[in-house]
């Protein structure tokens, strides 16, 4: 069971990490880059299948050389056997289509075609949710790659290696949320829903999980030994079809949405100010009965 997980680096939007300028624009230079959180969910799914069926987990990304750290983060915090970074100035400023083109070529260049390709739901910065499905689209146009069914919003995975079948539960959101169970043949391409949580109900699986977590942490210490970097020449890609030149869409502008004014007045009170705290308690007392 060989799985490939696709990932991207994104600004770390967590409080205390992210930095915005006065106009509310992200300060890219002051904000660290981390692995897209949804992709960790995808990596967890790949790890689950490795625990259950053995095989390998590869992690691939396209981006500047600094993304090596993003791959290392995935290896250290979740799991990876091998890391692949597609990195080249010619690939820069790509939209989702040019990214999908490049990544698909990366997949076609792998020595072994993966049984399963897993992507996260969407990135924390672009939020298009396109790259996974578009990679699948490019996949179909590439003669070197097998056809793969595409399943999105996957919240549970169950693979039967003997039969070469994959059963997935999909979250279908609506007025009433529904879980749809679908079955398909491997190889396949799945996009994980953020609601996915790996499940380990066997002691043996948990023990193997524990082993793999230890191994991957050790491997992350010397992660460059497990890293393959490919530029456009390695992938035999025409610069006109990748990066900015290969991108049919450009982002024409970003307007921050101003936040609505607060409807209620707030008076800041220091917890150390006994007098003020007593006043707060006095205000609250009438409501203590739950009315």
């Amino acid at each position, binding site marked *: 069971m060989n799985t490939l997980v696709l990932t991207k680096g994104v600004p770390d939007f967590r409080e205390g990490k992210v930095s915005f300028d006065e106009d509310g624009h992200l300060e890219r230079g002051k904000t660290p880059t981390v692995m897209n959180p949804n992709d960790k969910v995808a990596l967890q799914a790949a790890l689950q299948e490795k625990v259950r069926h053995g095989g390998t987990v590869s992690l691939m990304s396209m981006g500047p050389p600094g993304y090596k750290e993003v791959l290392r983060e995935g290896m250290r915090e979740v799991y990876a056997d091998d890391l692949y970074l597609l990195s080249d100035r010619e690939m820069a400023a790509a939209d989702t289509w040019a990214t999908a083109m490049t990544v698909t070529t990366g997949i076609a260049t792998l020595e072994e075609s993966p049984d399963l390709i897993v992507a996260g739901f969407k990135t924390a910065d672009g939020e298009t949710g396109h790259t996974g499905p578009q990679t699948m689209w490019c996949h179909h146009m590439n003669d070197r790659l097998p056809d793969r069914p595409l399943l999105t919003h996957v919240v549970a995975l169950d693979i039967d290696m003997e039969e070469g079948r994959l059963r997935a539960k999909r979250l279908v959101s609506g007025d009433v949320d529904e879980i749809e169970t679908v079955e398909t043949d491997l190889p396949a391409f799945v996009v994980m829903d953020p609601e996915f949580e790996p499940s380990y*109900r*066997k*002691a*043996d699986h*948990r*023990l193997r999980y*524990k*082993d793999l977590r230890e191994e991957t942490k050790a491997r992350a210490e010397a992660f460059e030994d497990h890293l393959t970097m490919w530029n456009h020449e390695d992938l035999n890609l025409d610069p006109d079809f990748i990066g900015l030149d290969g991108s049919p869409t450009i982002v024409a502008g970003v307007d921050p949405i101003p936040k609505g004014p607060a409807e209620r007045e707030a008076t800041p009170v220091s917890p150390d100010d006994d007098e003020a705290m007593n006043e707060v308690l006095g205000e609250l007392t009438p409501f203590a009965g739950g009315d």
Partner: protein
Amino acid sequence: MTDEYEHYEAIVVGAGPGGAAAAAALARQGVETLVLERGVDAGSKNVSGGLIYAEESAPYTIDDLFPAFREEAAERPIDEYLIHNIAGDKVKTFDLDRIHHHDTDWCDAVLRRRMDSWLAERVHELTRETGGGLLTEVRVNGLLREDGEIVGVTCDELDPIKADLIVAADGVNSELARDAGLMNWDEPEDWFQGVKAVVEMEPEVIDERFGLDGEPGAAHLFSGDLFETVRGGGFLYTNTDSLSIGTVFHLDSLAAERAEPHELLNALLTHPLLDQWLQGEYEEREYAAKLVPDSKKVAHPSPHQGRLLLVGDAGGQMQAQGPIIKGMNHAVTAGGLAAEAYADAKTRGDPAKAGELYERKLNSEGVMDQLRPSRYRATRAISESGVVTGVGSTLLNSPVGSAGLKALGGVAERAFNSPFLLGMVPDSRMSYVEIPIRIAEVLGEPIEGEGGTIEPPKLADRIGDLTYDVGDPHIELIDDSYAASGTAVTACPVSAEGFGGGCYRDERVKTNGEEKHLVSLDTQPCIECGTCAVVADTHWEHPSGGKGVEYKRG
């Protein structure tokens, strides 16, 4: 479906010293062993007073099984062992050197989180080689049976697992021992309750104030009237950069007197005798509590059923007689013997005989006689009766008794040091309260300090310092009347009368013009000691794996 169950040759439930010893000994015999621990980390659920012994006569000690134990998992050796008999402002200190060193190879102060998590790492390495291993955050919730026979365990987090041997080392509130009907929570008199504070102190300050010189530390016990009439005592052990200070009381006495455990601990902390060591400074790192089985009464003489063997607290194997408090060493020995019994039974071609062999080994190695001394059984009926206590205290308080005590002060000290006599020590007020008081009154010197120079934290702060994510409520109050369950409010170490933030609280509710005195329960601050299961009418189980209290020191 049955055929799909996972199978391990042995399952050990609980990664304390008993479970660790059993697992290590099994792994060394090449037995495929799976260890399941419900804490986020081994030791995160575990508390002990803090002394572990290695007895010369024991067939297994913790450092036999885990060679670097003393250097890497323990705090410091304990060489000095004193008991302070207290009456009002007078104290008479006896040196318990002889009883402390009797049959003792070594004795170390420990903190359980550090100790148990260290053990668990070794255990995982050893058991992993057999094809098993150690998992945390898995709560074993019962026994798996087929045709009435125990064949494995059931868990909250995992599918049922079958095994040829199940070692229940799941502690004082063992769910497996209860499932098998080998232990119950019926009698408060079968239990002690211990409460402990881990207090921060710089290593050089400890050495200076306790007159120590580097490595070996000191143990101090406290007995007499500092806890009024509640039967029990206090202890103080020096660690590397902290002190373990605690109290241990008979649960029946605690319940009958409606005493508040945290207040009894405070009575010790603020006692003038402690001024010399605390000197007005007090930084409490952790507040903890634990139920302690009284092995004299509840060490199961036949701690097995089918494939299930009980080890340590789960089998009531906690020796507490007078100033002797030994639990972890017996758990280690029992764990080693359980593994040995299984290996022997297998060699004989009948693994089902493991339980029987285990019982035989506990007896032949002398463990059972330490846990349930025949001398205690022989003298208990007489010495714990009211008549003897009455006569004893009359004699003790008479001028003749005092003269005797004065003349025989040295004999009294020797008596405290006699393992033979201690085996007979009755659990009456006379031995715990009156004798130490009289010793202090007659032989004691005035205490110098004023007392009360430190202020122990409020209960709310003590609870707040512990970490809780209890998940679903794991205790159900069956009878919420104050008459049936009111004692839980006082005896629970994290609840108190008039304190609204605890696990239990009492309230008066008016319905149809009638006022009812009721008890309510909020399991959020629960520290899983099990006290309420004994003193109140509850349905009690452990929280799921990784949930509930997490001790950082233990």
